[in-house]
């Protein structure tokens, strides 16, 4: 059976769920960042899938490029913050860094 839009949507859904699960359960800041990367990718999959199955316009792909670009910026900043925290708290355990609580 030919590969339809649904298939890609399901793949992206699964990737999204794994990303989400990572972010929810990871205690390691970097693990969380990785989860974020996964979520962004699932979004890209959807973009491209819709771009392909939705009439072939380039918008979808342009967006996904933007997403990738932003993901890069976000990762850079995220990791810089993590390093900052690490230097401050000597740990990047998400549990420990809750000084901003209410």
């Amino acid at each position: 059976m030919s590969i339809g839009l649904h298939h890609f949507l399901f793949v992206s859904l699964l990737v999204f769920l794994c990303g989400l699960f990572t972010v929810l359960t990871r205690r390691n800041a970097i693990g969380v960042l990785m989860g974020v990367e996964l979520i962004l990718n699932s979004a890209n999959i959807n973009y491209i899938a819709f771009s392909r199955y939705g009439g072939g316009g380039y918008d979808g792909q342009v967006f996904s490029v933007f997403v990738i670009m932003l993901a890069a910026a976000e990762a850079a900043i995220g990791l810089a913050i993590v390093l900052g925290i690490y230097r401050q708290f000597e740990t990047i355990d998400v549990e420990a860094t809750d000084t901003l609580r209410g």
Partner: protein
Amino acid sequence: MYAALFYFIAGLTVIGALGVALSTNVVYSAMSLLAALVGASGLYVFLAADFVAVVQILVYVGGILILTLFAILLTHQIAEIQVSNRSVGRLPALGLVVLLGLAMGAAILRAPWHVEPLAAATPTTYGIGDSFLNQYLLPFELASVVLLTALVGAIVLSRKELRE
């Protein structure tokens, strides 16, 4: 054969994602992230988005993943890479994720997606480049500004603290 290839790549992506989620060791999860990213790039090829696939490989894998690895290594004294990322209370998260999955799955199935007949796969680089400089000129320029800010931000954040 075409379908089998698709399933293989999709499986690769999903397993990579699972790896990132479940692995006990950060480095392992980094490796599985690599798999996931490559799988995704493969999917793009399937979706005739060649430019994006290549960009994915270059930027994501080459850039972000390496950067993550660097971070991991910097924040872990090699000696004590032991239990580092035991995660907290997986069960509720799992339950929640499954629920969410069902909800979105139902949405995917029910939604009357507007599907056009597939056109032939054509090289998209020219189209993307062209739209970058006409239709999406402003976001394109803004993107450069964002990247510059991110660059400066990263440098500022991670420089040695000046001991006042």
